[in-house]
């Protein structure tokens, strides 16, 4: 187990941005934290990386880590080459050759000033720096935000290949489709709490959709024009003989985040 978070809490004033969450990341695993904006994902990562002090709870990190922040800000007046040099000096086991290869592949001019790079290129630059560091755990906050689809897929492949070397990844996203491609386990976060966590494949196969006229013990996904309701129900809780539609991860996410639940 490379990272364990237990009952983490972080307050801003009286408001709890992170309200008692816990999860574990195993070695060689890609763990994704999903959730709407403002759910507390970034604050969680900042507590883990030590940028912010937690108010209570435990964070146990068993290995080296690096961090890709949400804002991806780099020194605007330095040239790309100078930023790479900076990482040579302070980066964690930085592999300069690897970094330069990635930059070349995406045609990022080493002599260009950072401020003249487009947002997408700055993201690629920061990614190439972080992914060229050699650590046990890569903590990435919205790594593909602002990238075009082809580049996004290449980056996802690159992130995945980190696990082939036994490394682990903790990352946040609010793009479901991307998480579906790459996560082993997920945690869905809402308003500071984790409302669902588990292996992605298991989650997919443990829920079904049921159409019903009466209220059911599940999450309401949709109310039809006819008045009938579509519920997301755990398969174990669905009685025999009732027709089940398969639920996609998108359905599961939407229903659970909406959180309209009838508990009998």
């Amino acid at each position, binding site marked *: 187990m490379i990272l364990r978070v237990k009952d983490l809490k972080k307050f801003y004033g009286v408001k709890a941005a992170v309200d008692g969450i816990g999860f574990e990341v195993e070695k060689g695993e890609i763990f994704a934290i999903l959730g709407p904006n403002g759910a507390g994902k970034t604050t969680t990562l900042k507590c883990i990386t030590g940028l912010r002090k937690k108010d209570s709870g435990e964070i146990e990190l068993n290995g080296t880590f690096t961090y890709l922040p949400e804002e991806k800000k780099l020194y605007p007046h330095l040239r790309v080459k100078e930023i790479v040099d900076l990482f040579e000096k302070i980066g964690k086991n930085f592999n300069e050759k690897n970094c330069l290869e990635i930059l070349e592949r995406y045609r990022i001019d080493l002599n260009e000033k950072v401020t003249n790079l487009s947002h997408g290129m700055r993201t690629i630059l920061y990614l190439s720096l972080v992914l060229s560091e050699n650590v046990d755990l890569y903590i990435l906050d919205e790594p593909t935000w602002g990238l075009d689809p082809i580049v996004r897929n290449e980056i996802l492949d690159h992130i995945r290949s980190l696990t*082939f070397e036994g490394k682990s990844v903790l990352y946040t996203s609010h793009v479901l489709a991307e998480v579906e491609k*790459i996560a082993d386990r997920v945690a869905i976060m809402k308003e500071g709490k984790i409302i669902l966590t588990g292996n992605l494949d298991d989650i997919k196969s443990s829920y079904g959709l049921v159409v019903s006229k009466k209220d059911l013990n599940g999450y309401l996904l949709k109310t039809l024009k006819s008045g009938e309701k579509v519920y997301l129900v755990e398969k174990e809780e669905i009685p025999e003989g009732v027709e089940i539609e398969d639920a996609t991860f998108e359905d599961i996410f939407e229903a659970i985040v909406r959180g309209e639940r009838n508990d009998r």
Partner: protein
Amino acid sequence: MWFRIDFHSSKPIYEQIKEKIKLLILSGKLKEGEFVPSIRYLAEDLGVNLNTVARAYRELVREGVLEVRRGEGYVVSKVNLEKIRTQLETELKKKIEDCKKAGIPLERILKVAEEIYRGDAR
């Protein structure tokens, strides 16, 4: 070995991999005693996670479809073709039930089946 994985399907990825491998065995493209790609190679080729392929292989071993050869890899075992066929038939039944509910006439179903089987013979 390559096949398309649908990441957004409600069917888990490891299930898709298991199915496709069983299909390959049933269709004779994968023979008994033949090696399947290593976990890592398949993961890279398919563009899926190591853990996912590992799980698919693990379950296929448990179901008796694959065997582990220490130091060498995974091999197609003396397959119980019957079992795989039964699984496929169960899925076909469900599909036909759906068609029946949809009001598709029996004649149409038979016609489709004929096209597929006869098509091969031609």
